[in-house]
């Protein structure tokens, strides 16, 4: 349809269209006929497909609105790429200014001991905490719901005492006002944030100097991942409270780490991934605005962890170009942002294949898959990060070999291929520009649909978003089973002559299984000690004040929650107060 072009001002497009028609007739169609194909399996784009393409409006320069070509002409990792070589830098070790590897297990003291061990090996990054599921769902370790889950997929946190235990090694050079922390926490983010604040206070430090990033992206928990507690509306109110509190008391903290990664991994299409996470971002912006702040007062502290990924190389590059443009336009035109930092998607990575593209079958193939993702990352504005390690689908813990191969693959792309020497290398490609436009149009249409429903919260409450994701997951499964979508080693090339190349699965020892087996009992014993030793009257008093204020929607609950954690109220006691008032979220039927 784009081939239909106007005469004079078309800059010779007429000629191109005519030439295309001729090419189709004389070259393309005979080939299609020769191979007996229903239609051509390839496409070819010409200037006619990018008719009216306004470079400055749609792409612009790297670091300039609408940021299609990148957040910045020179990212920090590019600026320091030589330095990284000289320093023998390992990104997963954190360095003295970043966070270390994402992790956490067992009791607070188990995780503390692990961090000390890491420090002794020169891995000095700040804590990058994974919490166990009980903590993520607002349960203490002695709760019946926590049985079997304590310390499993992350560290167990019941009280400020646990939190302080983890931070014992972080003093002096590693003091908490010198090194950042990451908290992958959503529903009980208010409590963890209060603990971080309280810890600084207890150490006589100014919380205004604390740096770090809580995930604090509760809306996606209702769409995917599932560690919600309260219904969406009160959850968003608590998000607002954290936002306002951080801006006022801990202004160096990032407010959140949003993203569509979990949504896509749960089965969403590319369009749903971006549209849903943009709708969520809009809801977070509105929460900040509703508190009386201006968008530029908080949006620069919004971050994204990642969007989803897939093996579809071109589409993932287009996705990131479109995502930057969509977010920038939404922030500027809809919310009136003026600062550059309010309009850019601040995230550590761009494209990748997504863990759900990896296969359990013939797992070494995942290394090749991840390298494709690394290429797409390098061509869409990020470190050419090869992710995940090939043994991702084999269970918890990446092997030493897989981790090394992942790191080296990234380095090969970075230092040998030169793919990051050009910012937005696809800019101006007839094909990529039209694909970026197509992606944007589809996402904007879906965003409008959600807006018409009343926004992200309404689209969650009605079950629309979770249901759409589940349906897409099933559609994908059907395509794989029908061999419409091919996955090597899964639904094709699986004959008896194919072999499973053997691999090493030696995982770096993180914990002693015998110690892990007793973690739940030890954590429960420590909690029992706390409950016996603390000032019961103070606990009751603090929780009562919290209960009183929680009923007033306008009230910011963070100061009360800080008082609660200071008085050694437990995480669940605090969450229970709000559970009682706000209720618990009930999933919409799928």
């Amino acid at each position: 349809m784009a081939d239909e072009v106007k005469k004079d001002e078309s800059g010779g497009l007429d000629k191109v269209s005519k030439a295309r028609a001729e090419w189709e007739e004389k070259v393309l169609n005979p080939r299609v006929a020769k191979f007996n194909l229903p239609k051509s399996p390839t496409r070819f784009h010409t200037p006619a497909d990018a008719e009216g393409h306004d470079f400055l409006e749609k792409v612009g320069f790297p670091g300039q609105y609408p940021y299609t070509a990148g957040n910045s002409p020179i990212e920090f990792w590019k600026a320091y790429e030589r330095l990284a070589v000289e320093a023998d830098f390992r990104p997963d070790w954190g360095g003295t200014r970043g966070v270390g590897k994402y992790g956490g297990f067992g009791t607070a003291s188990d995780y503390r001991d692990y961090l000390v061990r890491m420090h002794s090996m020169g891995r000095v990054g700040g804590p990058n905490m994974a919490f166990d599921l009980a903590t993520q769902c607002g349960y203490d370790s002695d709760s019946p719901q926590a049985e079997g889950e304590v310390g499993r997929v992350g560290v167990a946190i019941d009280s400020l005492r646990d939190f302080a235990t983890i931070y014992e090694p972080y003093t002096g050079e590693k003091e908490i006002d010198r090194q950042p922390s990451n908290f992958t926490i959503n529903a009980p983010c208010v409590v963890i944030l209060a603990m971080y604040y309280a810890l600084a206070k207890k150490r006589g430090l100014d919380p205004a100097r604390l740096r770090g990033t809580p995930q604090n992206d509760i809306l996606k928990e209702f769409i995917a991942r599932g560690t919600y507690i309260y219904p969406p509306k009160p959850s968003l109110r608590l998000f607002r409270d954290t936002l306002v509190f951080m801006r006022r008391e801990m202004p160096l903290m990032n407010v959140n780490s949003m993203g569509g990664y979990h949504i896509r991994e749960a089965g969403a299409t590319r369009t749903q991934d971006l549209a849903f996470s943009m709708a969520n971002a809009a809801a977070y912006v509105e929460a900040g605005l509703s508190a009386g702040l201006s968008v530029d007062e908080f949006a620069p502290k919004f971050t994204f962890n990642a969007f989803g990924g897939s093996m579809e190389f071109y589409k993932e590059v287009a996705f990131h170009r479109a995502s930057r443009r969509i977010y920038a336009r939404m922030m500027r035109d809809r919310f009136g942002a003026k600062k550059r930092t309010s309009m850019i998607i601040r995230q550590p990575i761009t494209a990748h294949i997504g863990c759900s593209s990896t296969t359990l079958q013939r797992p070494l193939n995942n290394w090749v898959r991840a390298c494709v993702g690394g290429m797409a990352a390098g061509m869409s504005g990020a470190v050419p990060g090869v992710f995940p390690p090939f043994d991702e689908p084999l269970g918890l813990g990446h092997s030493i070999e897989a981790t090394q191969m992942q790191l080296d693959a990234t380095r090969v792309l970075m230092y040998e291929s030169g793919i990051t020497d050009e910012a937005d290398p696809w800019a101006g490609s007839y094909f990529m520009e039209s694909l970026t436009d197509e992606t944007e149009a589809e996402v904007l249409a879906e965003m409008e649909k959600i807006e018409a429903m009343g926004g992200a919260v309404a689209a969650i409450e009605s079950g629309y978003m979770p249901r759409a994701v589940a349906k897409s997951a099933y559609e994908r499964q059907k395509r794989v089973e029908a061999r419409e979508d091919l996955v090597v080693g899964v639904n094709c090339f699986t004959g008896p002559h194919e072999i499973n190349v053997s691999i090493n699965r030696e995982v770096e020892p993180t914990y002693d299984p015998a110690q892990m087996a007793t973690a739940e009992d030890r954590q429960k014993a420590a909690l029992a000690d706390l409950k016996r030793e603390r000032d019961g009257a103070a606990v009751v008093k603090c929780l009562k004040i919290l209960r009183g204020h929680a009923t007033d929607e306008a009230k910011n609950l963070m100061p009360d929650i800080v008082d609660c954690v200071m008085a050694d109220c437990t995480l669940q006691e605090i969450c229970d107060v709000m559970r009682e008032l706000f209720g618990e979220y009930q999933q919409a039927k799928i």
Partner: protein
Amino acid sequence: MSGEPKIRVLIAKPGLDGHERGARVIAYGLRDEGFEVIYTGLRQSAIQIATAAVQEDVGVVGLSILSGAHLSLTAKVLEELKKQGADDLLVLVGGMVPEQDKQALLDMGVAEVFTSGTPVSQVAEFIRQNSKSA
């Protein structure tokens, strides 16, 4: 398969794990394969799952677990099913299960373990071959 009563399947997510993709896909898929499927949703205790299985009179219970806690959670559900007199049900486990744990689950009384990449049609076929109800 017309005329025959449909085999009833309960798909359940024990524990606090929120990874729901597999459970949802299996629920949709088995429904399309002609089974009657009940999906419990997230965060179900062993008692809730066993009770639902008995009340809904299902022939098959499929547990979806991706948190690494498959051994303890499955054992609890099996124990609870036994307590409620429903230990003749076909119990299946799906999710992230390392090879070495597979046998442990089978020894416990699980009929089969399906890990990622398993076609729904294969699960359906297994149920048809092994289910005593219907």
